[in-house]
């Protein structure tokens, strides 16, 4: 039996398996995010006897008991016991795509008790601060990342933001990449601002009220479970976040000078 532990957003998950190829995929895919510390979550991982099945979209079903979920896609089926922080994963294909999809669901739940969210956003560090740039596909996340060669990449697609004690919020490096195909740096950087992106003819930032910021943020939060208590927790964390961190609408054209607008917001 092999055990590989990944640490994402400060939460450690042990992937336990008797299949060396599964352990190798985890080790390779999450190379910058491996940990030797004690695991918060434990996932028993094996192979799905029927292999790939005919089901493209990921589905999350709640079981009879609170916090029990079944997650399924064409390339895996999994169960999670959120209160116990345990789960099972049966892979139909031993590759990083199935693992990555599964771990995105796991971390959307695992980070919540710690006051953290997965957000459909790019995040970049400059100096001692981080900026998060949220928006749907095509809004400019990867473009803005490419316009920032001097910045530290935390994520080009799925960012992790976590509330800390004392009113701070930190952006964590994320292994969940997008078009760039590159993991973020495994670091925690204080979050200076959140910008909601759209392409425009000129750079322009507009400060958002907490209500508009919350309404802009929530559609970008990755969340898969419909349990009321979990949905309430997502809303609470998101509301705390927009109360603590300045939020802006950012229209930009694809030029590096966008950082002047960001710095002056």
């Amino acid at each position, binding site marked *: 039996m092999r055990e590989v532990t990944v640490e994402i957003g400060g939460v450690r998950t042990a992937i336990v398996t008797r299949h060396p190829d599964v352990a190798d995929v985890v080790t390779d895919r999450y190379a910058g995010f491996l940990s030797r510390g004690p695991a918060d979550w434990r996932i028993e991982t094996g192979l799905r006897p029927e292999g790939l099945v005919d089901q493209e979209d990921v589905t999350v079903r709640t079981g009879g008991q609170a916090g029990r979920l079944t997650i399924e896609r064409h390339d895996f089926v999994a169960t999670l016991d959120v209160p116990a922080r345990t789960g099972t994963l049966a892979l139909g294909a031993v590759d990083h795509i199935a693992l990555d999809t599964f771990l995105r669901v796991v971390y959307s739940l695992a980070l919540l008790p710690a006051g953290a969210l997965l957000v459909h956003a790019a995040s970049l560090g400059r100096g001692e601060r981080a900026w998060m740039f949220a928006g749907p596909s095509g809004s400019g996340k990867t473009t803005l990342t490419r316009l920032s060669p001097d910045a530290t990449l935390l994520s080009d697609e799925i960012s992790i933001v976590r509330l800390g004690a004392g009113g701070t919020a930190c952006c964590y490096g994320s292994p969940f990449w997008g078009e760039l195909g590159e993991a973020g740096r495994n670091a925690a950087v204080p979050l200076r601002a959140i910008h909601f992106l759209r392409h425009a003819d000129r750079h322009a930032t507009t400060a958002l009220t907490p*209500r508009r910021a919350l*309404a802009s943020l929530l559609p970008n939060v990755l*969340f898969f479970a*419909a349990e009321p208590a979990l*949905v309430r927790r997502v*809303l609470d964390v998101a509301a705390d976040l927009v109360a603590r961190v300045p939020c802006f609408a950012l229209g930009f054209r694809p030029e590096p000078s966008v950082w002047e607008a960001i710095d002056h917001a």
Partner: protein
Amino acid sequence: MPDGYPEQNPRAAWRVYEGEAVIVSPEDSMLHTLNPVGTFVWEAADGRTGLEAIIGRVCEAFDVDRATAARDATAFVEQLCQRGLLTILEAPRPAA
């Protein structure tokens, strides 16, 4: 005249900012934002206050005539019922 006792779906998650509500649907996690009048009706929908009484309060709070308030509030409540955010009780829910 409108009747019944509107009641919020207890599974919905919501917050009010500066008089305007942000609500997340329990079943599909859809986001709904309400204007101040809609938020007023939403907050009053406790299952114990009749729609008629809620309309009276809307008239007082927003200086609107009763016919307009009744028409708009009834349409709004029906809309939220269709979205699964409200239900209409035939009798007031007993106080807990």
